[in-house]
């Protein structure tokens, strides 16, 4: 069984059909890229996967459970984690607290009230900050970070929930070339325990880290396959040439 399976997912906003029967399958520990021209429905599909939007039609199955009508907290508790397209770190909190907030999300309220997991999570928080090269800023407010660092903090927060599936919407948006390269490096090790669905405009970045790609065009799946297959696909070349 695949980890995530979305079938026939449609989303209609008024008269606009943003998604028209899109499908996506992600295996365990697979990095899956979602590409396509602007307005092809990539972000809408991500939102339907994460629960930010409910699809008009279709079904999303995650670890053998139909999660189509799950709320975002329910999906998060099932093991999905989303990094928003717009950075949404909590600016007045320290980096440390941002991570701890994400990490403790599934603790019971009683445990939270008595801070029962604070000591236990300390090392994990520092490890993840270290992994994302943010440890020396741990006790600064998140607002003081550069844009690229905020993106990393977001990814770190999304990972701090210990997801089985990480959904990244444009993680390298607004990053320098060097920062993009580092982001790729930061993402590699998570493959040991987590699958990834990533929406990204930077095709070189996608090609470097992904195992498989799905190409969307006008809300429909145009092609899906390994990176090599997609690169060789004539119709994919055409839509990218057409818009270029």
């Amino acid at each position, binding site marked *: 069984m695949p980890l995530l399976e979305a079938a026939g997912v449609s989303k209609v906003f008024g008269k606009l059909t943003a998604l028209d029967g899109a499908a996506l399958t992600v295996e365990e520990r697979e990095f899956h890229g979602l590409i396509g021209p602007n307005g092809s429905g990539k972000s809408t599909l991500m939102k339907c996967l*994460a*629960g*930010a939007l409910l699809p008009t039609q279709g079904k999303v199955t995650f670890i053998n459970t139909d999660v189509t009508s799950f*709320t*975002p*907290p329910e999906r*998060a*508790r099932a093991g999905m*984690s*989303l990094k*928003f397209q717009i950075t*949404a770190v*909590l*600016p*007045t*909190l*320290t980096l*440390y*607290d941002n991570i*701890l*907030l*994400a990490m*403790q*999300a*599934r*603790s019971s*309220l009683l*445990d*939270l*009230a*008595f*801070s*029962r*997991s*604070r000591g236990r999570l*300390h*090392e994990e*928080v*520092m*490890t993840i*900050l*270290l*992994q994302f*090269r943010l*440890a*020396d800023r*741990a*006790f*600064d*407010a998140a607002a003081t970070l550069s844009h690229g660092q905020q993106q990393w903090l977001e990814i770190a*927060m999304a990972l701090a*929930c210990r997801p089985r599936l990480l959904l990244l919407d444009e993680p390298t948006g607004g990053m320098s070339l060097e920062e993009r390269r580092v982001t790729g*490096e*930061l993402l*590699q*090790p998570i493959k040991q325990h987590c699958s990834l669905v990533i929406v990204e405009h930077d095709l070189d970045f996608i090609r470097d880290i992904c195992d498989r790609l799905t190409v969307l065009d006008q809300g429909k799946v145009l092609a899906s396959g390994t990176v090599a297959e997609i690169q060789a696909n004539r119709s994919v070349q055409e839509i990218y040439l057409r818009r270029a």
Partner: protein
Amino acid sequence: MSSTGTRTQPPPRVIQAARSPIMASAFTGRKKVLLILELALLIAASIAPIVLPDYITVYATRVLILCLFALSFDLVWGYAGILSLGQSLFFGMAGYGVALLARDFGVGSIFAVLPAGTLIGFVAALLLAGFLLLGRHPSSVVFVSLGTMTGAYAADRLARGSHYLGGQNGIPSIPPMTIGSHELSEGPVFYYLVLAILVLIYLLSRFLLRSQFGLALAGLRENEQRIAFFGYKVQHLKAIIFAVSGAIAGTAGSLYAFHEGFVWPNMLGVVMSTQVVLYVLFGGSGTLIGAIIGTAIVEGLSFWLSDTYRDIWPVILGALLLLVILFRPLGLISLLLGERERVGSFGPNREEKRNAAP
């Protein structure tokens, strides 16, 4: 640095990363300001009845009760970001509840009426939260504030129209609260009782807000939608803090009823609700001590001004409030406390940081 290298760092690096002596000292330095402030206020409040004339002690008791009420509003607005404009609903309902207990059932024992008032506030807030906060979709700030305000307004009107509740005049001459056979009337004993309850609830709130639950509340206030995607049940969090704050408002309302000796519809209404908003904005929302300072200063000023400048004091008070809100939107407390101290920090406690420091 290779990518696998970054992942499997040995533990010593982790501890090293926590070392930031400059930051740690700045942090503990600011932390002291708050603690000194809290202790100074506690000492001042403890000796006040000894040095002040009795009629001022009576007034100060009322201010302390209002401080407790302000604390309850600060919890929902300053910490959880829920703009409750109907906080007086819980205050007044508890007040009316205990007044009826004393009038119609002869129940005046402090061990019965205070828990009863607290429970009334808690249950009323929980019911209102059920309507306003527990939908599938998060409710907007405007919806919640208008909803709570409508509740307070409706309760005010109902009380005015009800013969049983005494109509416009409310319930006068409530029998006094008792401890054993001792009757509590206004004065130093009542003052110290209220002070003890205020300190206890302050400490409990402080404990809760500094816990990981407090961090969840901070997340709720900053970005409700974001933390839902971490897996927080935000609606439940909101309902719980709302109910806890209702309980505290209920405690305050029952104390108020027995201290004043009567309850009247204004206790339930919008005037009381907005008054508590002003206290907290003036002192500084999102800090417990700010709510206390705000209440004490606003009430202290009105006491002094109404005596000295009988005719124009509301204007002076209004101008002062406006000045604070214009130039110190974070309240007077922001003159003393830095941003980090105000927002709080939930990471490793001071002990752990000191151990991590070289």
